[in-house]
């Protein structure tokens, strides 16, 4: 654990102890987020403090531990760019970057990411200008209704990072190749976790292909 995590850990622990009743004891484990008494369907668990770095800004939240990262972003921080499609990790509309790596925000709890950095679609553009990938999506009309677009953008941003570090994919013929070429077949396979109901796939692939040729 680094110092930041230690700090937030203590704050959380103190906050929890203030609200906890005598029932909450677990020998040998830090009582990071013990609920007040045994949880049941009618008693919401005690809230926990969660510190997140969202798009470069420190955010301190007090959350029901059940809150997914996606709900924390949308319902508690009003960052509604990340979309809730299926809420089961199947559609990719909720894709965000966790410490630079793409994940489904719907299938993780905000409290699990205390102290970590999240980038949402709202954080992709910098200094008032679109990222090369965003600009390519506009240029190639890489969307129709737009509901999946923020997830596509975050996912493709993560995918391009993975590609630059030499990550192979299922369709990479030679796994020992240090930097597999990002062909259209590779782009499609690597983006299979993002569904587009409007089927704008050809234009999405074209946009990503263009951005892949753009220096990071």
């Amino acid at each position, binding site marked *: *654990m680094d110092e930041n*995590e230690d700090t937030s*850990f203590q704050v959380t622990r103190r906050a929890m102890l203030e609200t906890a009743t005598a029932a*909450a004891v*677990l020998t*040998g*484990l*830090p*009582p*990071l*987020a*013990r*609920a007040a008494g*045994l*949880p*049941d*369907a009618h*008693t*919401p*668990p005690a809230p*926990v403090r969660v510190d997140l770095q969202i798009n470069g800004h420190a955010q301190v939240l007090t959350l029901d*531990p*059940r809150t*997914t990262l996606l709900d924390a972003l949308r319902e508690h921080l009003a960052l509604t760019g990340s979309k809730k499609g299926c*809420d*089961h*990790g199947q559609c*990719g509309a909720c*894709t965000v970057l*966790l410490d630079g*790596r*793409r*994940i*489904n925000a719907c*299938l*993780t*709890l905000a*409290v*699990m990411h205390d102290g970590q950095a999240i980038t949402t679609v709202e954080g992709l553009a910098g200094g008032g200008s679109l990222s090369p990938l965003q600009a390519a999506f506009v240029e190639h009309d890489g969307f129709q209704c737009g509901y999946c677009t923020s997830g596509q953008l975050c*996912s493709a941003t*993560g*995918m391009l990072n*993975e590609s630059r*570090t*030499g*990550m*192979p*994919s*299922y369709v*990479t013929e030679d*796994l*020992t190749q240090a930097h597999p070429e990002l062909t259209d077949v590779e782009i*499609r*396979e*690597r*983006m*299979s*976790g*993002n569904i587009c109901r409007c089927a704008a796939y050809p234009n999405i692939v074209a946009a990503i292909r263009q951005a892949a040729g753009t220096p990071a």
Partner: protein
Amino acid sequence: MKAFDYQRASSPTHAAAASAKPGARIIAGGTNLLDLMKLQVETPEHLVDINRLPLDKIEETPDGGLRVGAMVRNSDLAADPRVRQHYGVLSRALLAGASAQLRNKATTGGNLLQRTRCYYFYDVTKPCNKREPGSGCSALAGFNRIHAILGASDHCIATHPSDMAVAMRALDATVETVDANGATRDIPIATFHRLPGDTPQIETTLRAGEMITAVTLPPPPPGVQIYRKVRDRASYAFALVSVAAIVDAAGGHIRSARLAFGGLAHKPWRVPAAEQSLADSPANATTFDAASTAVLDRARGYGSNDFKIPLTRRTIHAVLTQATRA
């Protein structure tokens, strides 16, 4: 989601101890557990987060193998240069599973422990012996396209959904665990997962309060490594049939072969008789047929999944043809 209390484990032993509590679940990547919690298939009262534990290293073992920490993410394991070079079947199997987003989260230990994708296990309004022991199996006479043809029972015909575990089965991996007292155990992957029998709710030989800390791969075996996955779409789908093959052949002659199967049973499946029939044999259709027959000797379809029997036979032929191509 039902209410739970959340705690962050400070050591593997503490995590193991906390997981021994009734109603406790360890959460690693969470990509399967949280999905099931949203549907209330899983309703843990205590969630033990092990994401901060230092179990995320891939280390070389003295005998020339690799030791993979339980918290190594699926994407990191697939991309590791040593895995790509020497354990291609594992890298390929990992990359065949789920999506990139999920692989960035999913862990080595969690992947082994993922639950079946049987529709009725997911549907809490339907009987399921795995979810609610004694309630019955809806898949037996229901929609069972994705279900088992080998090793099933009248209580459960679910399959294990992992690709990674199939490759590890072919590689003869060992699962390392720790318990609340700090005692460690090595479990061969062959005996890690269980067949359903009349207790389909018990899926592994892990004991209460025992946690996976690592998976060890023996030194890479000789031969070509192939992972072939047959599914309903080209990407991001579970296997109908998958084969992890390690075949040592030259000049049209098979010296040795290992075949592990996914999508066919409650656990990654291997048939020693099939591998024996391939050993020291000519690489031809007769040999491949004999091996297929040995694999499918006791196969049984349940209606919608009858197609898996000929599909498995053809997939074995395709894989062995590819593996023995001069």
